[in-house]
């Protein structure tokens, strides 16, 4: 069955790729065209709200090219972690785009839908059974954490993808899975070496991160043989280098040698990276250690309030010289003014970020005393309710604009406010409150699968 060829179209569905690279990749007759849509990098909002962090237009463009070529050439197309967080709402959103693509291009694929959002009853039972443990520096999971979470997804392994492929799916739209599981699924089911399959999957899942020159996202092709695999760019004018490919093993991983997956650990300490040709890198020596238990990562987010923000510039040199004391006196005035509205201190937090001083590093900023001629002021209010958030921000804006300070000459206003309206209402705010691993009796325990005929795809409504 070897070699097996996999095409990763882009790092995240919607981040784009060139048609030149994609067409060249398709001409190499890959056994799979796939892309993981997921990332937690943009933060907890997207899981919490069940909304994507890429645009519908961008996903439609990427997915449209993939599905059209896949159907034409009989190559299965798989999307993992749909919509960014892989929640049911984001799977539905992706299905709606697929429906539109199929209708517009008169395509009739057989579609497998894989969902990995978890029910609270299931999680409570697992938690009570002692099957859920922290993943990193976070507390033990409690019953209240599960109750508080708006959405919880499980990061599945390759098994559901394999079931979908074995049963003849043309297109797979999946919920949250590990990036690598999406690409390891096919080679593993065809008997490839697990170390090579997982390592290849891990390297190509981020798309053109391993490609030079770095000119944005693009397609990458991985080919797995008996005792090695190769990585190369789809684009004819680009190349994969040993430096890029080996360095990618570091990327976004807490350690480079051991990468944890649901049913084992990829071990890369004895890997050999070789430049096979100008554009192609060969990798060998990757190993996979099976785990005793099958575990999936859980990601959950809870709502923590409502945010309103305000941005302004401070140019006055007298104010900049005394900015720390000024912030203190503004805070005192805000506490008084907000208290008069009947809003309690525990109902909100006000964060003051001073760009140009220490807004990025906070108290860890090493260069705190450099000369500054202009400061960016960001006021960030997190309120228990939308009304509280808006009211506190409005009082804060007024305080920063008009509070007096020693030596003040600019008595008509302290801030350059760039917009009208000035206050930006961000809406609900979430935080990750579940970042744990759950032991599964069976890999499919955390997965729900359904099939859609071409007619059902075309008739689908979000």
């Amino acid at each position: 069955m070897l070699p097996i060829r996999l095409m990763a179209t882009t790092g995240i569905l919607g981040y784009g790729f060139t048609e030149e690279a994609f067409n060249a990749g398709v001409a190499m007759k890959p056994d799979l065209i796939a892309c993981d849509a997921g990332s937690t990098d943009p933060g907890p909002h997207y899981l919490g709200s069940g909304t994507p962090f890429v645009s519908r237009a961008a996903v439609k463009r990427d997915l449209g090219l993939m599905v059209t070529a896949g159907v034409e050439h009989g190559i299965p197309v798989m999307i993992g972690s749909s919509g960014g967080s892989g929640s049911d709402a984001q799977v539905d959103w992706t299905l709606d785009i697929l429906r539109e693509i199929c209708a517009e291009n008169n395509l009739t694929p057989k579609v497998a839908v894989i969902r990995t959002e978890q029910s609270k009853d299931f999680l409570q039972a697992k938690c009570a059974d002692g099957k859920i443990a922290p993943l990193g520096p976070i507390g033990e999971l409690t019953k209240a954490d599960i109750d508080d979470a708006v959405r919880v997804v499980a990061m599945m392994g390759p098994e559901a993808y394999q079931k979908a492929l074995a049963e003849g799916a043309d297109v797979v739209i999946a919920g949250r899975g590990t990036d690598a599981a999406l690409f390891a699924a096919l080679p593993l089911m065809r008997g490839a070496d697990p170390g090579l399959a997982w390592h290849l999957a891990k390297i190509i899942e981020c798309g053109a991160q391993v490609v030079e020159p770095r000119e944005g996202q693009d397609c990458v092709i991985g080919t797995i043989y008996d005792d090695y695999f190769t990585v190369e760019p789809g684009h004819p004018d680009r190349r994969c280098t040993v430096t890029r490919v080996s360095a990618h093993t570091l990327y976004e991983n807490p350690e480079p040698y051991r990468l944890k997956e649901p049913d084992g650990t990829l071990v890369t300490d004895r890997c050999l990276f070789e430049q096979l040709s100008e554009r192609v890198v060969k990798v060998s020596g990757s190993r996979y250690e099976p785990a005793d238990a099958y575990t999936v990562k859980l990601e959950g987010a809870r709502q923590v309030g409502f945010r309103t923000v305000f941005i302004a510039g401070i140019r006055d040199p007298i104010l900049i010289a005394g900015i720390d004391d000024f912030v203190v006196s503004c805070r005192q005035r805000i506490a008084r003014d907000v208290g008069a509205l009947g809003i309690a201190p525990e109902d909100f937090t006000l964060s003051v970020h001073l760009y140009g001083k220490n807004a990025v590093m906070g108290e860890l900023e090493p260069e705190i005393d450099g000369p500054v001629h202009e400061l960016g002021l960001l006021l960030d209010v997190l309120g228990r309710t939308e009304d509280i958030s808006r009211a506190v921000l409005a009082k804060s804006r007024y305080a920063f604009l008009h509070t007096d300070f020693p030596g003040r000459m600019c008595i008509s206003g302290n801030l350059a406010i760039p917009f009208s309206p000035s206050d930006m209402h961000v809406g609900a705010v979430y935080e990750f409150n579940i970042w744990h691993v759950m032991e599964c009796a069976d890999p499919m325990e955390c997965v729900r699968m359904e099939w859609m005929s071409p007619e059902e795809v075309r008739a689908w409504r979000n």
Partner: protein
Amino acid sequence: MAKLMDIARVVRGKNAGALLLTLDVMFDDEETYRKVRDSGVLSPRTIAPLYGVTDNEVAIIPFDVAKAIKITVPRRVRSGAPGDTDVYGAQQHVPLMMIDLPD
């Protein structure tokens, strides 16, 4: 005195999930990489105060094949949670790049 930014090709930081920050230092040549790796200048004791964590929370892992040194520390605030200033963790590498190197 030279700083790490004067001799490294890459000094970067990024989330490793929502709870950890991981920093990579990469070098162009084997000699510079080995010199820094073996000098002890990148140690839990030097890194911990830069990131407001304790020595035993700092993991430092050399990765010879990429001529790179990986440093992983816990985030002080979970990514995107109230109080965070850098959701992706992409601009937290600066204290590391400013580290002074022994002559």
